[in-house]
């Protein structure tokens, strides 16, 4: 592992802060141009402080704290993402390891991949008779494709050198899967998961706007109905930050499982 110097960290932090300053500057500019129809950062900050002062209050079905909304969304995303990955990884392994699997499944992947989550929603409602189930369904089905594709790519690019080890020493199918195929494909699988969780997090907001109930997406829609643009902007910032954290977490995971040239 290479160690990161303090100077490097300081540089990265400085760049991040500069980047945020640009964002705030643009935001302020837009607010001025729209004659404060879009709230400026300062007034949003006030609302933000109010919202996070008591994030877990619960005054009935239509009035819950932002923390409850956020965690409810995170729960749905994790469930949908986990279910999607449970389908996606074996499917990718099958596609990557056999020509038949690739030829049979790839057209399905190519056709279903570009379908919008919103198009799946009615089918989800029909199948699960509940908006919560439908939301989880659309997260699963729209987020699994990057994992499928990256897993398949990882498996299909196992070098002959590694395959020959399995052949020469008579590895069983299970040993080949667990000791050669999965370890080699793991960094690729994690790349797929990283892209998939990104999609899942994008989809949740759209899903919850349709489904209603509790969740950060519902919170955005509810704030629009209550004409509180500040609350919408706060939600956007929270959504963005959580997305960033997801990405960082999977990036760290990826670095932890990269065995090459250590």
């Amino acid at each position, binding site marked *: 592992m290479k160690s990161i110097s303090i100077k490097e960290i300081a540089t990265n932090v400085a760049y991040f802060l500069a980047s945020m300053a640009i964002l705030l500057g643009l935001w302020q500019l837009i607010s001025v141009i729209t004659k404060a129809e879009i709230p400026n950062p300062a007034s949003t900050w006030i609302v933000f402080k109010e919202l996070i002062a008591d994030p877990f209050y619960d005054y009935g079905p239509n009035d819950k704290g932002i923390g409850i909304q956020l965690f409810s969304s995170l729960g749905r995303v994790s469930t949908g993402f986990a279910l999607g990955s449970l389908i996606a990884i074996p499917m990718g392994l099958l596609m990557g390891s056999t020509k038949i699997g690739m030829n049979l499944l790839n057209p399905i992947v190519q056709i279903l991949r570009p379908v919008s989550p919103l198009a799946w929603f009615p089918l989800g409602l029909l199948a699960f008779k509940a908006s919560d189930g439908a939301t989880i369904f659309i997260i699963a089905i729209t987020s699994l494709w990057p994992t499928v594709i990256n897993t398949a790519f990882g498996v299909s690019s196992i070098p002959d*050198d*590694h395959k*020959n*080890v399995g*052949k*020469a*020493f*008579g*590895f*069983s199918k299970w*040993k080949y899967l667990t*000791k*050669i195929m999965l*370890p*080699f494909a793991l960094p690729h699988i994690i790349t797929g998961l990283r892209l998939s969780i990104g999609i899942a997090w994008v989809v949740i907001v759209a899903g919850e706007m349709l489904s209603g109930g509790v969740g950060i997406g519902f919170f955005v829609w509810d704030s629009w109905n209550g004409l509180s643009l500040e609350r919408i902007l706060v939600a956007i910032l929270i959504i963005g930050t959580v997305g960033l954290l997801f990405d960082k977490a999977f990036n760290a995971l990826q670095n932890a499982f990269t*065995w*090459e*040239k*250590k």
Partner: protein
Amino acid sequence: MTNIVNPNQLVDSASDFHKINSRENAIDIKNVTVSFNGSKGTFTAVKDISLEVKKGEIVALIGHSGCGKSTLMNTISGMVTPSSGEVIANGNIVKGPGPDRGIVFQNYSLLPWMSVYKNIYEAVDSVLKDKTSAEKHAVVDHYIQMVNLTPHKDKLPGQLSGGMKQRVAIARAFAINPSILLLDEPFGALDALTKGSMHIELLKLWNLDNRNKTIVMVTHDIEEAIFLADKVVVMNNGPAATIKKIVDIKLPRPRNKKDITHDPEYISVHDELLSLLFDKFSIED
């Protein structure tokens, strides 16, 4: 797998190891031709080769780069299927790789995500199915000790030098106790000093097993071939390579690396191999 061999049955003729000519063939290559279909048509790597290797013999395949010696050896390992002809190893027609033939690959082929210990253990676990877990671990420990890698057993291959990786690959091949060992330019990437000590290690391992293992190695190093082998197979240049000549090395064993270079037998074999491999000895100007 059709030809899984019980490792305990392999060491069965220790008493007559010195009577090599009385032994059965460990490997029988019969009229083997290997052709590959490429973009520019069919390429024939080796053509109509026949070769017998007796049990317990060390045979070196020698020739210029690209002469098909690796291809020929891969027909024994089962990695390459002959286009015509057949290879018989331990009495069975070779249909694919099998644990009765241990392979040391040219580029070591260690799994980079596993420690030295795990690399050997997985092979042992896969081949020696009848042994208990404790016995398997004992085998791995034994062979790691034999190649002097005990202090490095928890390292990943990426943390090892070329010579160490080579020793891991050799330990892995020996640990599954195959009756035939196939070495593809095993010492090619090593410096002269490491190479010399690896030769001795290899012979030590061979001796420890009463010289019962048959070893086929690909090399382009004449000195290495003479020092190690009972028989040197010189190949013509490809494509469609054939055997040019089989030279017997009658030097008595154990051989001493320093002393044999003065042996008249060594000198004459060396000269013979040189002239077989190189037509011209000086640059005409």
